[in-house]
């Protein structure tokens, strides 16, 4: 058995959760080849470390719904309502702006229109947010 064969076999043995004894040929190779012995020790440490990886603390919002109460599903036909909300976010301020500015002196028209346009943009951005499943 050469070094490449040993390493391949040793890794497969680790992946089989060491459920069977290592082949005698492989064990003999590790005894005779110090590099492979070191390699085997290092891989065994990594394997054992990976089997005992510390658990990840779940974020609060993930914990909140693990009991089931916080799971929200997006409404059916969400795409249509999304388009309608977006359209409304633009159209309503635009309409209001047009009506109001008709009654304003010319110097005020630009300022008020800018304000209303900013509002429309903020509304548009708010409705563009991706839906979240976790309450």
């Amino acid at each position, binding site marked *: 058995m050469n*070094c490449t064969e040993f*390493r*391949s076999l040793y*890794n*497969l043995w*680790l*992946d089989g959760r060491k459920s069977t004894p290592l082949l005698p040929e492989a064990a003999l190779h590790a005894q005779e080849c110090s*590099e*492979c012995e*070191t*390699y085997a*020790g*290092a*891989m065994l*440490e*990594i*394997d054992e*470390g*990976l*089997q*005992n*990886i*510390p*658990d*990840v603390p*779940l*974020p609060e*919002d*993930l914990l909140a*719904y*693990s009991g*089931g109460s916080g*799971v929200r*599903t*997006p409404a059916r036909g969400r795409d249509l309502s999304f388009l309608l909300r977006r359209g409304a976010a633009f159209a309503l301020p635009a309409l209001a702006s047009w009506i109001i500015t008709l009654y304003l002196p010319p110097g005020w028209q630009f300022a008020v229109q800018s304000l209303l346009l900013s509002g429309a943009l903020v509304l548009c951005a708010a409705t563009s947010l*991706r*839906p*979240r*499943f*976790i309450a």
Partner: protein
Amino acid sequence: MTPASGNRSDRPLDAEFRSIVRDFAPQLYRHAYRMLGDTEEATEAVQEVLLSVHRSLADFRGDCALATWIYRIALNTFFTHRRRQRNQPLPLIDPEDAQALVDEDGDVEEEYNRKETREQLARCIAKLSPRESAAITLFYMDGFGYKEIASIMGTSLSSVGLLIHRGREHLHILLTGKKERAGK
């Protein structure tokens, strides 16, 4: 540890989706966190996975286990996030801190060091290549076998073995900075 490999039932889709979220979201988050190494990134990625699952749930025909199908979607999403992260390298692991993994003297601090080192090891998973980190995480953290991983990753059993073996070697190099010990 192993996620439910639930079969498809006739329950209404929304109810099924809720049960998917309950059964899979924590495990998907753990997987995402280990692959991406960042809480916010992992949370965002899991949200995207759940959104994709919700959109395609009606099309799921049960050709494979539900867990396999969900993890395929998840890996595609996590790979996309990894690509985005490429220009934001994760902090380097100090090899001296990690040396405890190979130096195991009996010591009162051994348990603490061991915990620390395992956390370092876990953080190194996010520094592997995306496919190596996916294979390592699916094998060790999600408890999948070679066959399931091959199905999820769309590759052969031998490739899964290689990814896991190389992943372990690369983790050792990342932790200790000792390339020769991994025999490469």
